[in-house]
């Protein structure tokens, strides 16, 4: 069983923590690693590529990491974070274009079930499908 880690990158720490809380509600008793890199160190809105690389390292157990992000600098900070990682860790990381909240919930559920990295990343990308199907 794989133990894929998840990293949430957001401009806002409250936004990231609330998204994780929402996802954790689906995962009773799960130990899936969900790390947050969000906000500036003075509590403001912003992203920090060094913090993202630290979060990726913390979430990585060797089975891969899926990174979800909000917009703008979160995307570029996540890309920059990859440059700061060792080659072997970087090779295990996927940056996901999934919507943050929906992608996180989907990814966390399958990661908690022991899915491998590519399956977790694919589930994140499917994040909008239930809502699209419902709304038609």
């Amino acid at each position, binding site marked *: 069983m794989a133990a894929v880690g998840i990293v949430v990158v957001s401009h806002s720490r409250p936004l990231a923590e609330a998204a994780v809380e929402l996802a954790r509600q689906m995962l009773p008793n799960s130990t899936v690693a969900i790390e947050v890199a969000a906000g*500036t160190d003075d509590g403001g809105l*912003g992203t*920090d*590529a*060094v913090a993202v690389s630290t979060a990726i390292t913390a979430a990585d157990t060797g089975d891969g990491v899926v990174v979800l992000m909000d917009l*703008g*600098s979160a995307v570029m900070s996540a890309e*920059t974070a990859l440059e700061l990682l060792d080659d072997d860790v970087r090779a295990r990381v996927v940056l996901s274009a999934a919507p943050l909240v929906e992608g996180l919930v989907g990814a966390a559920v399958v990661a908690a079930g022991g899915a491998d990295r590519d399956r977790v990343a694919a589930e994140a990308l499917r994040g909008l499908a239930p809502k699209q199907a419902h709304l038609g």
Partner: protein
Amino acid sequence: MAALDTDALGTWVREYARAVTEHREELTELDSAIGDADHGTNMHRGMTAAVAALDATPPADAAALLKTVAMTMISKVGGTSGPLYGTFFLRMSGALDDGSPAAFAAAFRAGVDGVVARGKAELEDKTMVDALLPAADALTAAVEAGQELDAALRAAADAAATGRDSVTPLVARKGRASYLGERSAGHVDPGAASAVLLVEAAATTLPGS
């Protein structure tokens, strides 16, 4: 080592920090018109932290100096300019060969190429690239033509300012400003404005040869 040693590059970085601090409100005002109103604040926070980091741990050489600036910008700026300017200084640091004007021009070019790769912006998208690419072209051409570095950097700074002004009438195609569509036309791009300050700081501080 020629004239472009650790001290010279440190003077450039400090002058840039001073310039973004002086123009902080103006940069934020430009950004409030077509973005999220934080560019001046972010650049001031990042460059002030970079100077503090250099003061706390004096870098061993020019490459280490540029790397310290890069890592501080990546970590402290918060907005998109953090990864963009951080990548600029990181690639410059990796490409800096020796202290010659040609090496500086090549390293500057590597930094600009890094910004283009990171931001995926092209000319006339109305970003900092519209100031930095013409600056890199002018710098390379002037150094290859045998001009002294200070004259070459003057040409580069003028090209950056011309590039910044040339995209003011355009509609932004990248970044937060692109959300505004037509409303972004007629405004100076804040990223291009801070990029001009970077090249201007080099032109006023770096030595002739």
